């Protein structure tokens, strides 16, 4: 406990110091900036998620500010690191809401962390948009919580259909992370769709975030002779699981969700992740002009190919700025109504409309890992 306070305290002092510094430099000249909070996993087990959303978000906000901002004011992003820890997400959100009095809260990627922070935003009646949390429970927290991505019942169904129809799999084993709402939910929706379409789930095994040894579960799965294994986890564990599965002579394809989307999957998994499939929000190798332009600009600025989290961070910034402009003010209630009224926003990850449950309706893509890269395989339209 004391450690957390200490680290948190130092972090807070640093952020305040930074905020003061930048305030003195730029504050005197232009109009007062609109402050938007972003809580993200900049470090820890899923560090690439937070880093990517933050980069995408900042890119979009810089573009908007360069074009004059919204309502004649620039937007300022205040990012708070939650170190990939669920409880930290909540206190990061509290800090942004209370200390910085932000007009909107953006974040997280991991559903468990969005779920920890969302009640804070709802209680403060400040709109929150999660760029990439796909578990349905997140937006069920309240009418101030939105998301810029599709939800897991859809994503699970996409992969179940892909396994059944494209791969022709009859028997599938599941290995999921029972500490993550995202993984539990996705496994559940996959199971339902796959069984409803006549397939059999032959094994239902679990692991815990942070685990490094999966050979016991994989040996058990191997004995059930599956046609494919569904691993709806986050990239750190997925890479290790793929390696250990191949070592044990399991050569059937592994399937996953958007939690795989990180360059780290390739770094950790190496040859072991080749030939596997996962569902995602966008394909970097798509030839849609918006995607091509975004990928080029992102590479120029950050020196790497944007993953889906970067795209969703970018689109989330866009949705928010668009809503502020339409609301004509930063009043939280007006802003909430404007976000809810988002229709056909032209995002890089697709055309975004908010449905009545505050979720974005969008198409999904299935990616294949081939020659050390994520390659576009097929598009599954929203249903």
């Amino acid at each position: 406990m004391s450690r957390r306070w200490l680290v948190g305290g130092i972090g807070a002092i640093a952020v305040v110091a930074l905020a003061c510094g930048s305030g003195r430099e730029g504050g005197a000249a232009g109009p007062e900036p609109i402050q938007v909070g972003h809580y993200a996993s900049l470090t820890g087990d899923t560090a690439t998620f937070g880093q990517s959303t933050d980069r995408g978000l900042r890119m979009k906000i810089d573009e908007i500010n360069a074009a004059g901002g919204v309502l004649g004011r620039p937007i300022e992003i205040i990012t708070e690191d939650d170190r990939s820890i669920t409880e930290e997400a909540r206190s990061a959100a509290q800090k942004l809401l209370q200390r910085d009095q932000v007009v909107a809260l953006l974040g997280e990627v991991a559903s468990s962390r969005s779920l920890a922070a969302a009640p804070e935003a709802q209680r403060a009646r400040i709109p929150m948009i999660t760029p990439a949390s796909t578990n349905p429970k997140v937006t069920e927290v309240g009418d101030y919580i939105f998301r810029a991505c599709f939800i897991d019942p859809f994503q699970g169904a996409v992969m179940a259909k892909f396994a059944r129809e494209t791969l022709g799999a009859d028997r599938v084993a599941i290995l999921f992370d029972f500490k993550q709402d995202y993984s539990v939910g996705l496994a559940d929706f996959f199971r339902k769709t796959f069984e409803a379409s006549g397939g059999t789930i032959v094994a239902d095994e679990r692991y815990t975030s942070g685990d490094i040894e999966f050979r016991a579960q994989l040996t058990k799965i191997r004995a059930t002779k599956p046609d494919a294994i569904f691993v709806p986890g986050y990239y750190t564990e997925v890479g290790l699981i793929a390696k250990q599965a191949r070592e044990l002579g399991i050569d059937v394809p592994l399937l996953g969700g958007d939690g795989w989307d990180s360059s780290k999957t390739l770094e950790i998994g190496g040859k072991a992740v080749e030939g596997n499939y996962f569902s995602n929000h966008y394909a970097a190798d798509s030839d849609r002009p918006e995607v091509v332009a975004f990928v080029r600009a992102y590479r120029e600025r950050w020196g790497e190919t944007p993953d889906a989290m970067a795209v969703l961070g970018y689109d989330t910034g866009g949705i928010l700025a668009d809503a502020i402009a339409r609301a004509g003010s930063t009043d939280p209630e007006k802003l909430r109504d404007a976000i809810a009224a988002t229709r056909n926003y032209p995002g890089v990850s697709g055309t975004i409309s908010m449905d009545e449950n505050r979720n974005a309706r969008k198409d999904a893509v299935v990616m294949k890992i081939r020659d050390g890269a994520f390659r576009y395989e097929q598009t599954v339209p929203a249903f």
Partner: protein
Amino acid sequence: MAEDLLQQLVNGVAWGGIYALIALGYTMVYGVLKLINFAHGEVYMVGAMTGYYAARSFGLAGAPSLLGLVATLAASMAVCALLAAIIERVAYRPLRSAPRLAPLITAIGVSLLLQNLGQLVFGADPKFFPPLLESRNVFEVGKLSVSNVQLAVLGTAILLMAALQWIVMRTRFGRAMRAVSFDAQAAALMGVPVDRVILGTFVLGAVLAAAAGVLVGLTNPKIDPLMGVLPGLKAFVAAVLGGIGNIPGAMVGGLLLGVIETFVSGYLSSTYRDAIAFVLLIAILLYKPTGLFGTTQTEKV
């Protein structure tokens, strides 16, 4: 069925080898000082981290070689030996005559210090150990597969344990260690340099933990500054299981715990895997506090 059972046994023994190496450090220090060195899990973490940086600076990331593995092991052992010596000198020696609770709490303090220092120095992000050996299966009978990495881990662990057994039973230092463990005061009276023996014991334990850190980097290549917490506690359980203070006990306890954990994951549910070690700890303390190999000591009055 039999093949799967055998496979689980292989998985468990390879995993337990890591616990055994860490458990040895606990048991040796307990043997000479009656101290549970809770900072030992962090020495293991530093061993893995040093191995990671050493392997990268040796340019081994893309070029696996056995020589590279040996060099990495050596570098990691050297750093951990130094770290353990510093910990002993700074944190434990000033408390040598204090009540036993004081060094125990200090040990927890050192453990927390190293965890946080680790996050500061190495960063909180997990790191991915470069493959120092190209993984391939050397042994495949039916579905049973044993990879060269698993063999290397087990081989190194056995080699180190044999070396330890030789040091303890056949060398002058080993005899001094046993004497201090038996009765430190009497040993001092007989001219055994107790302080130096204790320092040596810490260093020996740290060398084994360093090896465990590098080996885990080979089989399970994700490392981070908090990786030592759980294995540290579990290795402590392994040491108690074997009978704390007893060296062969720690080896057997470690291997046994690895096999038990694997079987629990493989035949019950992995949900119980982390709990089983602590259930085991409670059961041993209740029914056989001396562990499998420990002997009852009569309290001298």
